[in-house]
């Protein structure tokens, strides 16, 4: 991972499973809109982002 993506990964809140999925799909979680009040990216958020 590049320095910038790891920095952005650190600022994003997401369950480890979501991170892993995003990593496998080469998706930067910082780009994914969140459905949660604290900005956490859920698995459905990630899936919705994929369907966009």
């Amino acid at each position, binding site marked *: 991972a590049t320095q910038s993506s790891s920095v952005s990964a650190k600022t994003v809140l997401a*369950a*480890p*499973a*979501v*991170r*892993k999925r995003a990593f496998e799909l080469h998706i930067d979680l910082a780009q994914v809109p969140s*459905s949660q009040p604290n900005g956490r990216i*859920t*698995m*459905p*958020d990630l899936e919705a982002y994929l369907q966009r």
Partner: protein
Amino acid sequence: MQMTMIEALNNALALILERDQRVVLLGQDIGANGGVFRVTERLQERFGEQRVFDTPLAESAIIGSSVGMAVYGMRPVAEIQFAGFLYVGMNQLVTQAARMRFRSGGVFTCPLVVRAPYGGGVRTPELHSDSLEGLFLQTPGLKVVIPSNPYDAKGLLVSAVDDPDPVVFLENIKLYRSFRQETPEDYYTVPLGKANVVQAGEDVSLFAYGAMVPVALDAARQIQQETGATVEVIDLRTIWPLDEEAIVSSVSKTGRAVVVHEAPRAGGVGAEIVSILNEQCLYSLLKPVERVTGYDTPFPVPGQEDYYLPNARKVRDAIRRVLEP
């Protein structure tokens, strides 16, 4: 035959005494009185005072002398009247029984079973309900077994007595007579170290043992009714060593987990399960693992224990939280 857990344990002890002449039972009030819960009912009558005998009121001596008997070649099965009194014999259990093999470089062994009732919800005096299993994670050399039903109780006790190392066998008081279950009168074993998938499920893994297994099943039923989600309920059966494979494979599938125990939360069995999941399947986790446990206070008096103990409502709420996206 339909047996309560008391009957199953009594049956197991009789069987063990019959099969293996090296076995002796000792403890407070286990002879004529048959034990305060009657687990050893009629065993002294049947096997004699040489095989089944009362001891003076001294837990350290019960465990310490059992260590000597075990080294000699016997298979002592010692009863501590309530698990809370294990603290009194803690040194003999942890630094002696658990380490005989270790200290002697494998020359001497200590095939000793220490049985003790424990568990809340039965309005007992203090120290009668305390759950000590979490303590033994930090005391290497001991196995810890907690059955949740009569069938397992018998099979696990037979395995514990056959085990070449010391086993702490904790019996939940609430389960002692709460239900009967078909239990063979003949010899069989349930292996130590193997968890039991009581109910398969896809959406969340629920780990429990002892009296928390029925609580877990109750909560699982409610969840399924209310949400349609299926809960995989796993009865750990052996607390140490934990069946890590079973734990990890379930959560790898579900991505969500709840652990239930009566013992305090801090550093308990739940903490170790969370740690195992962290180490072995963190990337499967969709939500924080929930611990539904006793609080980090001493076990309270009878009038307050209901406010202390995990119950189906607490477990159901935890499952609900875990099921959120």
